[in-house]
C-alpha cells in the first residue's frame, strides 16, 4: 500500500441551522439518504483500490452536518467502516460543525466515530455568524456554551477563525487572548477569507487590505511564538510552518499543496463531485461529475475537463506567473485555486494573497531559524511544542 493520502470532503446536507450573513453556499434542502450511502462508499473504495491507497480521510461538513443527527452518523460510520474493512481499507472520520446543535447525545458517536474530537468555527469579534432569530451576540453566547459543554465532556475541539475587518481592527493581542484565555483553547486556526459565490454586500467586510492583513498575521505569529509555542498551543497554519522551517514533518494546509487535485475531492448530498466544498457549493461550472450516476469515480476524475484545469494549474503558474523564482515556491505552489477564481474569475493565476503569504512565510522562516539556533546552542532537542493533533488538511472556510 502507498503512503498517499486521499481525502473526501463529504457534505451530507447543504441545509443549515444558522444564518451567517457572509455564507456563500447554496443551501438547498436536501440530505444524503442512507439508501445511497452504500453506493457512495463502494465508489470511494473502488477508487482507493485502483489507486493503491489504504486510508481515506472523510471530512464531514455542510451546510451543518449535525442536522443529520447522531444516530445517522453512527449508522453511516458503521456502514462505511465495515465496507472498508472488508476490502482492506480504512476510513478516518472528522467532523466540522457550527456546534449549535451539540448536546451530550453526540458524545458517543463523537468518541466512537470521530476519535473524540471535532472542528468548529468562530470569528473574533463575531459580527457575521448569526442565529435565525437572535443575531451575532446570541450566536456567540450559544456557541460558547456548547463549546464549554463539549470540552467538559472530554471532546477535543479545534476552532477555525475567519478573519474580517473587525479582526484586524481588534488587533492580534485581543484576537489571540480571546481564543486562548477567554475560550481556553489549545488548538485553533486562522483562515483568510475569500468572496465565494454570488456577490453579497457583506463581502466588503472580508475584502481585506493585504498589507494590513499581512501585518496582523505577522503580529499574531510573533505573539504565538512568544506565548503559545512552549505552552502547547497549536495555532494553524503557523505551527505547520514552524515544523517545516525546523526540518520536522509538516502537514501544510490545502491552500499550499503542490496540487490539491491530487489529494482530495468533495461530494455533496446529491453525489455531485467537485474539488472541494468551496467549489461544490458555489460553482456548478467546476463540477467533475456525479458519483451516483457515473459508473466509476476513478474514470470520472481521469476524464473530467473541469478537473483537468486543476491538474494543469500549477504547471501554468510556473510558466506564466512569477512563482518559479519565488523563495517560497516549495511551500506555496501558487496558492489556492478557489481563492484565485473567486477574486479573478479564473484559476489560472496565482493566489491574490501572494504578498500576504510571503509575509507569513518570511516570519515563519525567521522564527524557525531562531528556534534551530536556540536548540543548537542549548542542546535542547525540541522545545515544549508538540505537533497539533491530526488537524484536517482540508481547510473549512467557515
Amino acid at each position, binding site marked *: 500500500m*502507498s503512503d498517499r493520502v486521499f481525502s473526501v470532503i463529504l457534505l451530507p446536507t447543504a441545509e443549515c441551522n444558522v444564518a451567517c450573513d457572509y455564507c456563500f453556499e447554496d443551501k438547498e434542502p436536501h440530505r444524503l439518504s442512507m439508501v445511497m450511502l452504500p453506493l457512495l462508499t463502494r465508489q470511494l473504495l473502488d477508487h482507493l483500490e485502483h489507486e493503491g491507497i489504504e486510508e481515506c480521510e472523510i471530512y464531514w461538513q455542510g451546510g451543518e452536518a449535525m442536522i443529520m443527527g447522531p444516530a445517522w452518523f453512527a449508522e453511516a460510520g458503521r456502514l462505511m467502516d465495515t465496507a472498508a474493512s472488508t476490502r482492506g481499507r480504512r476510513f478516518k472520520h472528522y467532523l466540522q460543525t457550527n456546534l449549535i446543535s451539540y448536546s451530550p447525545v453526540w458524545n458517543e458517536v463523537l468518541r466512537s466515530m470521530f476519535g473524540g474530537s471535532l472542528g468548529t468555527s468562530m470569528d473574533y469579534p463575531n459580527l457575521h455568524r448569526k442565529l435565525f432569530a437572535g443575531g451575532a451576540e446570541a450566536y456567540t453566547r450559544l456557541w460558547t456554551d456548547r463549546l464549554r459543554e463539549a470540552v467538559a465532556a472530554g471532546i477535543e475541539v479545534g476552532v477555525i477563525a475567519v478573519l474580517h475587518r473587525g479582526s484586524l481592527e481588534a488587533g492580534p493581542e485581543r484576537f489571540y487572548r480571546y481564543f486562548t484565555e477567554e475560550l481556553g483553547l489549545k488548538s485553533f486556526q486562522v483562515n483568510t477569507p475569500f468572496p465565494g459565490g454570488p456577490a453579497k454586500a457583506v463581502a466588503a467586510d472580508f475584502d481585506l487590505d493585504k498589507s494590513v492583513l499581512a501585518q496582523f498575521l505577522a503580529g499574531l505569529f510573533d505573539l504565538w511564538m512568544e506565548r503559545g509555542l512552549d505552552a502547547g498551543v497549536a495555532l494553524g497554519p503557523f505551527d505547520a510552518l514552524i515544523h517545516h522551517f525546523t526540518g520536522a514533518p509538516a502537514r501544510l494546509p490545502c491552500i499550499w499543496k503542490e*496540487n490539491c487535485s*491530487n489529494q482530495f475531492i468533495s461530494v455533496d448530498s446529491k453525489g455531485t463531485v467537485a474539488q472541494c466544498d468551496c467549489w461544490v457549493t458555489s460553482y456548478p461550472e467546476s463540477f467533475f461529475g456525479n458519483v451516483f450516476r457515473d459508473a466509476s469515480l476513478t474514470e470520472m476524475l*481521469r476524464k473530467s475537463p473541469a478537473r483537468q484545469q486543476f491538474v494543469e494549474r500549477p504547471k501554468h503558474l*510556473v510558466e506564466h506567473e512569477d512563482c*518559479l523564482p519565488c*523563495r517560497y*515556491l*516549495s*511551500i506555496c505552489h501558487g496558492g489556492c485555486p478557489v481563492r484565485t477564481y473567486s477574486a479573478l474569475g479564473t484559476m489560472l493565476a496565482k493566489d491574490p494573497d501572494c504578498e500576504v503569504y510571503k509575509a507569513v512565510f518570511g516570519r515563519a522562516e525567521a522564527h524557525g531559524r531562531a528556534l534551530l539556533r536556540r536548540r543548537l546552542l542549548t542542546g535542547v532537542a525540541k522545545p515544549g511544542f508538540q505537533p497539533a493533533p491530526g488537524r484536517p488538511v482540508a481547510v473549512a472556510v467557515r
Partner: protein
Amino acid sequence: MLQEPDASLAFLTSAEAEGHLGGSCVVIVRTRGEFARWLREPAPGVEWLQVEGLLPDQEAWAMAAQGTSKVPLDVILTDPATEFSGLYRLVDARIVRSVRVTMPAAPGFLKAVRLAASLQLPVRLLPGQPSAEALAELTEAAHFYLHDPMVETPVEFFHSLLAGLRGTETGTLWTMLEEDPLVFARAEAQRPRDFVETHLARLIEQGAECAACRWQKVCAGYFKWPDPAYTCAGVKQLFASIESAADEIGRDLASRESGAS
C-alpha cells in the same frame, strides 16, 4: 586466466531486460506499455527504471503513483527549459517511490532544477562540455543548491563534489554522475570498461591541462570528453566556488567545536 565477474550495472532496453539473468540492471522504458510492464513486475535485480520521453504522459504518471511495486525511477529530461513544468506530474509518484530527475545542463535548465527542488526531487545534472552560457547557469545553479534554504534534496554533481571536498570518498565525477563504464555499463556510451583510466592517461600524455590541474583527481578528464580541446577555465572556477563553500562549512564547524570545548 580467470576473469573477474562483471559487477557493473547494466543499462538495458525493455526488450533486452526480459529474461536478463546477469545481475543488477537498470531498465530503460520509452513507451507507456513498457513503463506499465516494469512498474507492475520489476523482477529481482532491477535497480531502477530510466524513464525517457514520458513526462507529458499524464496517464503514465497516474500509473506510477499506484500499485505495490516501489521500483525507483530516474526521469530523463532532454529539453529542461521547455519540459520543466511537467515535473508537477511526478508529485504523486514521488510519494510512493523514489523519483529522481536527470537533465543536461542545456540553456534554461535552471528552471527545471528550481522546480525539482521545490518538489523535493533529487537532480542529476549532466554538464557535458558546457558553453559559456551554460557555465553561467551552472554557477547560478550551484549557488542555488548551496545557499537557497528551500533546497532539501541533492543536486548532483554539486552534492557529491561538496561531500568529497569535505573528506567523504566519492570517487570521480564519472562515478558521481553514474557515467564510469567500470560501474555503469551504458550501451549507448560505447566506452570500454577501463575508459576513465585510459582517457585520463592519454590526456596527460598529450600534455593537456589536466596534467597540472588541481582538480585532476576528482574530474579525471570528465570535461575533456568528447572534445579534448575544451578549455576548462570556467569549470575550474565552478569547482573553486564549491570548494569555497566546503571550506566555509569546515570553518563554521571548527569554530563551533572550539567554542564548545
